[in-house]
């Protein structure tokens, strides 16, 4: 009997990659895609596969590494979240023209909702812009199958193929059937062909023409054609679904007793939409409901918009996740079936906050002390939660803390009294997109302080290594790049490293850095302390300082409001602060924050 295993969607994708002989897999972590590469690495270790897996410095570099591998004749894949694809969009557009030699998959995970992203953008639109086919899985099991389908498609037409899972596929678990892993002998063979791999504009025109021909043929490719899920249903109207909306709709149609009544088509390849399918829909049905996330990609390709009920017609919401309860209403309305609306009370949720003992909390507290009226541009990571302390004013995209700091400086520089600017960026984010911006700030002599929140890891996405870690996705030793040396190499003269846990000293250092920046130019402070999720209990014990609340505490709430440690809260009558021993990790930082000195060490 074949083995059935409980798999996260991302693990199923990873399993699909190794089952199909992927030889090079790269990624940069980002929710909801992060677990794909670590799962590939786990399969690689367990099955002793000869392949290259790596976290790259950013998605663009990850893309280029995997793409080069495919033109040597190895199957390869790059995975990322949807906004990561923006970073990799430059090589994407060009690679579409040049094509592939062996199968190449771009796995771009979307986040309708959004649950953990800046935007709800639809990667399928990027596929459309690049003119490459995209497959849209509805479940972990189908995502795994689509890896095989994708490689076959990529090799049949010499074209990069996108797989577009969404959060509800990536972070769903399902029992998945394991197939055998194909042990492929990897024989790289790069054949020089400069007219293609280094094509000049004249040849690009030719490649573009070829690409259009490929797309026409792919729109007739049988293996990825839409499926009619309930052939027994006959009606004047039909429903077209893709991705996880297909999963919700299948279940709903059965529950609502409509399975035998209205034809349900599942689109596997939303772009290019199959030509014959388009004609069939428009010729044979009066009204067509299209349900997809998050943009109306399928809908856009159906010419007769009068027949289509969807995002363009205003029937299907264009913003937010298409939850099953929303789809239930759509289907009922479309099929003229009675629907009793669900009226849900809005319950205020608990907002996320930095962990107890998080070194970023100490850094933010110090920043507000050192430049109380400053402008605080920040960046993407756990430290975005510095918002809670009023120590984060802007969050745009990876690396933007530094570029925006420069923008604020240039905007204000001719004012008589200009604000101090303190930007924060994580270590991994600094490597990803901060370095060019810092060089630019040096060249333009931007007078600001950059605090690099160096917790020695990529924390938000599950503690992946950074280029400074000296370790890879397989835990193999790698070279480490020193952040201070890199900062100095960017041309920064003032660069200090300190531990934010030493709060008083850290505040003094930041004040000096602010002074320096006002007079001279960019100052960098590297706030170095390991992420508390990434150290062993023994390491934690080594610096543990157990604290208690003294009787002097009058419940003023300063610590709860300005420090927001999950372990500190006011009692029910709001007369005293209580310490939650379950949550406290004994970092001891709070000893320095109470204005009445009422947080004291347990041992005198």
């Amino acid at each position, binding site marked *: 009997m074949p083995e*059935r*295993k*409980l798999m*996260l969607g991302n693990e199923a994708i990873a399993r699909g990659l190794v089952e199909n002989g992927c030889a090079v897999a790269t990624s940069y972590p980002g*929710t*909801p895609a*992060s677990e794909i590469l670590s799962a590939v690495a786990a399969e690689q270790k367990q099955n002793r596969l000869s392949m290259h897996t790596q976290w790259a410095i950013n998605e663009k570099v990850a893309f280029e590494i995997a793409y080069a591998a495919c033109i040597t004749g190895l199957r390869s894949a790059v995975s990322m979240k949807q906004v990561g694809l923006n970073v990799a969009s430059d090589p994407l557009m060009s690679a579409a023209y040049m094509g592939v030699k062996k199968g190449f998959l771009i796995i771009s995970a979307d986040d309708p909702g959004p*649950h*953990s992203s800046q935007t709800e953008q639809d990667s399928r639109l990027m596929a459309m812009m690049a003119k490459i086919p995209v497959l849209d899985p*509805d*479940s972990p099991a189908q995502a795994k199958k689509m890896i095989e389908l994708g490689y076959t498609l990529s090799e049949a037409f010499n074209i990069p193929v996108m797989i577009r899972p969404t959060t*509800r596929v990536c*972070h*769903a*678990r*399902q*029992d998945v059937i394991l197939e055998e892993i194909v042990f492929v002998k990897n024989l790289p063979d790069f054949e020089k062909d400069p007219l293609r791999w280094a094509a000049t504009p004249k040849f690009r025109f030719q490649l573009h023409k070829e690409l259009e021909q490929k797309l026409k043929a792919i729109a007739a490719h049988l293996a990825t054609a839409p499926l009619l899920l309930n052939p027994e249903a006959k009606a004047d109207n039909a429903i077209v679904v893709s991705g*996880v909306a297909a*999963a*919700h709709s*299948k*279940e*709903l149609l059965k529950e609502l007793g409509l399975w035998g009544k209205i034809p349900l088509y599942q689109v596997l390849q939303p772009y290019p939409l199959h030509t014959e399918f388009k004609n069939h829909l428009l010729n044979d049905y009066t009204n067509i409901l299209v349900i997809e996330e998050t943009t109306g990609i399928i809908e856009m390709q159906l010419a007769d918009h009068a027949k289509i009920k969807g995002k363009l017609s205003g029937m299907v919401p264009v913003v937010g996740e298409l*939850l*099953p*309860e929303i789809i*239930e209403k759509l289907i009922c309305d479309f099929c003229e079936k009675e629907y009793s609306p*669900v009226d*849900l*009370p809005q*319950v205020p*949720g*608990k*907002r*996320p*906050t*930095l*962990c107890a003992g998080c070194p970023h909390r100490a850094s933010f507290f110090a920043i507000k002390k050192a430049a109380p009226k400053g402008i605080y541009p920040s960046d993407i990571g*756990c430290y*975005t*939660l510095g918002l809670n302390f009023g120590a984060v004013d802007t969050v745009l995209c990876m690396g933007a803390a530094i570029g925006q700091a420069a923008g604020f400086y240039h905007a204000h520089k001719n004012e008589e009294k200009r604000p101090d600017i303190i930007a924060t960026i994580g270590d991994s984010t600094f490597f990803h997109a901060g370095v060019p911006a810092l060089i630019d700030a040096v060249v333009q002599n931007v007078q600001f302080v950059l605090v690099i929140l160096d917790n020695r890891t990529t924390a*938000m*996405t599950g503690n992946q290594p950074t280029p400074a870690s000296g370790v890879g996705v397989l835990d193999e030793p790698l070279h480490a790049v020193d952040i201070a040396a890199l900062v100095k190499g960017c041309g920064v003269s003032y660069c200090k490293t300190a531990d934010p846990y030493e709060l008083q000293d850290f505040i003094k250092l930041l004040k000096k850095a602010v002074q320096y920046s006002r007079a001279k130019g960019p100052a960098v402070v590297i706030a170095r302390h390991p992420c508390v999720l990434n150290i062993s209990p023994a390491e934690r014990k080594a610096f543990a300082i157990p604290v208690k609340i003294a009787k002097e505490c009058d419940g003023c709430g300063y610590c709860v409001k300005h420090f927001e440690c*999950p372990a500190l809260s006011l009692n029910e009558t709001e007369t005293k602060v209580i310490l939650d*021993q*379950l949550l406290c990790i004994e970092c001891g930082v709070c000893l320095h924050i109470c204005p009445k000195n009422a947080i004291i060490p347990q041992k005198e």
Partner: protein
Amino acid sequence: MQQIQNQQYVISGVGGQGVLFITRLLAETAILKGLPVFTAETHGMAQRGGIVLSHLKVGNFYSPLIRPFQADGLIALKAEAFEAHKHYLKPDSWAVVNKKQVPRQTKNSSFIAIDANHLAQKIDNFRSINLIMLGFAMAKAGNASNLFCTSQDLEIVLSQRLANNKNFHHTALKAFNTGFSEGRNE
């Protein structure tokens, strides 16, 4: 394959409490019983102390998500998580909630409270609230409804998962059984 009715459960709490761990235990138990299973999980920023929610669907389903008023049961590792997610429950469902005071009984549903924080303190294992709650839920709901698994099934899966970590295995079983006994004794 064993024939059972389709079942849908919601497990919720705040980031860091181990909602994902017990969701996964239940899902693996379903596989042990030869049943198809789906879960949907919260990852990313909400895991930093925000409200997290898992959906668990055992039986013949296509979608990983549970709609409002469809869940057969709810395990809330924090009282506020219960408030945020009780709308998933259907009539005649059950909920076990980690709370200091016993909440009022709501019509057509059985809501049972337990002070799991206190029990965790008693067994000197602050991080085991999730397993105490799971044990308690098994004791309470195992009788009340046609649950897809027994506490013995869960213990088997727990032992399989933690086979390589004897210390953790011992404390995890202890926490699970503490919750289970509490549920039986009440």
